[in-house]
């Protein structure tokens, strides 16, 4: 597969759905249901992705080569082999890191303006 010639910074800012999917995959490869569960958990249930949004996002991330499908299974005996697993590509990791940095800068800015307090 040809490497994308994209500069990660040019893809920013990411939409919340894309960022959350990439963030979920930053913890390792996951199938669609696990991604959806992790996003819901990270956001205290505020974002519950429907199948259409999740797989629409996955499709575009695959096309942009930010994620890729994985053939490996954590444990074939414990899992349904019809599930498709996804993982971050190198570019995907760079993009999610860049977006996380961007968020961190925004948080630092807000903290500097005393809009939010320091973390406990």
């Amino acid at each position, binding site marked *: 597969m040809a490497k994308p010639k*994209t500069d990660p910074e*040019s*893809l920013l800012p*990411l*939409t919340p*759905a*894309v960022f959350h999917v990439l963030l979920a995959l930053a913890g390792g490869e996951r199938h*669609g*249901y696990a991604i*959806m569960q992790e996003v819901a958990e990270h956001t205290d249930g505020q974002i*519950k*992705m*429907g*199948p*259409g*949004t*999740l*797989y*629409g*996002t*996955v*499709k*575009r*991330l695959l096309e*942009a080569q*930010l994620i890729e499908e994985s053939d490996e299974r954590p444990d074939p005996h414990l899992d*349904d082999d*019809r*599930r*498709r697993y996804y993982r971050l590509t190198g570019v995907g990791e760079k993009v999610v890191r860049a977006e996380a940095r961007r968020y961190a800068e925004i948080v630092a800015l807000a903290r500097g303006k005393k809009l939010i307090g320091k973390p406990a």
Partner: protein
Amino acid sequence: MTKNFNNRALAVSQKIYGWLLRAYPPAHRAAYGPAMAQLFRDQGRDAWNESKGWSLFKLWLRVLPDLVSTSIRERLAALNERKTMNDKLASLTHDRTTPTAIFIRVFLAVFLITLIVATAITFILPESYASTARVKVESDAASVAAQPSYDPYFIQTEFEIIQSQLVLNSVIDKLKLNVAWGKKYFAGEPLTTGRTLEILKQRLQLAPVRNTKLIAITVYSDDKNEAAQIANAIAESYRDYRVSSRAKLLANGIDVLQQQYQAQAAQIQTAQSDLESLRQQLKIAGDAAASQSPQEQPYWDKKRNLSQLIMLHELLNSKIEAVKMDAQLPKNAAVQIVDRAEPGRAPVKPNKTLNIFLGAVAGGFLGLVAGAICALAAAKFGPREGKQSLPA
């Protein structure tokens, strides 16, 4: 039974979702359809485990807008892809991407989706049965002792009494609804009487029967036998309340009248002894006829007053007898249950025909709007070649 229903509700939902996936372009469906169906299955299972039908319903409320918006987006994306992949040539012979064609396809898709969803929701929604008991009510004033009078607020007042704690609390106690509904709806936790009363009021509907003295007491429930049982219990409790309040009223009335009667008797006795003293003082014979002598005048005045007092005393006695007769009238004279509630044969809610009709109307409207937007978008925006973007 519950497990079968569980399987059936989930299976029907999955089947409908699988069918709705047709809204996506074939290529997207081929690539992601099974995974999306699998995800929906997982979400459906979680929802059912969380709180059964209600969570499944909420899942549908979340999934449907997602399905409509993402399918339209994928359709538009597929349209742009075709243009970049030299599909224009093919479209010259069979152009399925003209704004009109898109309008028709989107309209049909949205219309059918809405109609199917409305139908599915109608069949998923819990069924509700209604049972009606009818009671004939008479005003307490319409008795032997009192003159009948028209009270314009009588029926409204009785409606409020039927819905009051005076009547409904005894129904709750009699049918043990705190425990029964706690088991049924709140995982076995018994309800407080206040909470049960609130639920009971929500399920109760009262209506006057036109041009009669009848009140229809209708109760809704997902159990047809329970609906009938509650409607009958309310009618009985209301009748008992009216009988007991009427009995109390009459007993109080009789007490007051008897006190007056006794006071009058004492008055008469005093007047009789005064009269007798006066007669002896004036030396008037007991059987003497009334004379015009000024000396005897006080005696004859007192005698006349005594006669009037005795007459009033007799009238009061008649009144007491009349009120006592009232109290002995049949106990159900004030409220009579003319029709007992029977378990309904068919559910009254949801109204399947109406829901499906409204679904069709809403589908038509949404289809028109979505079709127009998609057709306009297709006409306005061309393919965006070479521009890299990530999904919204």
